[in-house]
């Protein structure tokens, strides 16, 4: 697969990222090949101010590494520092 291909993914925002992005979710068409690249891209376009180093990422409702490849139709959720309990 050509890494420069565009793919459509659904992005979910929560908590502080939801406030910074100004939305709970959006469908994006992206050339980002990994979750990391997508976060960097959206950080710039949506003005996300939370450092990626402090966040985790989930694809299709499962935690993955930031290097996880993205596929068309994936649901990507960025996970700010959690504070349950």
């Amino acid at each position, binding site marked *: 697969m050509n890494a420069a291909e565009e793919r459509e993914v659904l992005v*979910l925002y*929560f*908590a*502080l990222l*939801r*406030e*910074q992005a100004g939305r709970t979710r959006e469908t994006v068409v992206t050339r980002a090949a990994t979750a990391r690249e997508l976060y960097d891209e959206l*950080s710039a376009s949506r*003005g*996300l*101010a*939370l*450092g*990626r*180093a*402090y*966040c985790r990422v*989930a694809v299709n*409702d*499962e*935690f993955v590494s930031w290097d996880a490849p993205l596929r068309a139709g994936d649901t990507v*959720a960025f*996970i*700010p*520092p*959690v*504070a*349950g*309990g």
Partner: protein
Amino acid sequence: MFLLAELPFDTATLATQLRCEHAGAFVSFEGWVRNHNDGRTVVALEYEAYSALALREGRRILDEALARYEIAAARCVHRTGRLVVAEPAVWVGVSAPHRDAAFAACRYIIDEVKLRVPIWKKEFYADGESEWVNCAHCARHDGHALS
């Protein structure tokens, strides 16, 4: 069983559901909304959850507790939405043949839930300000300030 609850939960019912004939011990933990944090007066909290993943990860934690400790059953319920001071936010219950395992498993579960489950807490302070807990010092490295 790990559950998210939009409304207050009934702890007596939760405890009863863990009762079983070979369990001689029951241990529970409740997290309540505290009126202070980091020197600030808290008046309310809001919990937000990534439900699909929170349920998965919460269930994984309970399965881990069942595998690691000699316990009969374990449950955890976590609130979402707005809570006021002194309101219960989370409940963990464990039944086991003996108390050592019940205490240890209960501690394990709440510690892991706090560490891993995608639930976020926004604190509302008496001075009118609010803040997402654990996010205050997490700005991007290029120096952008948090909103």
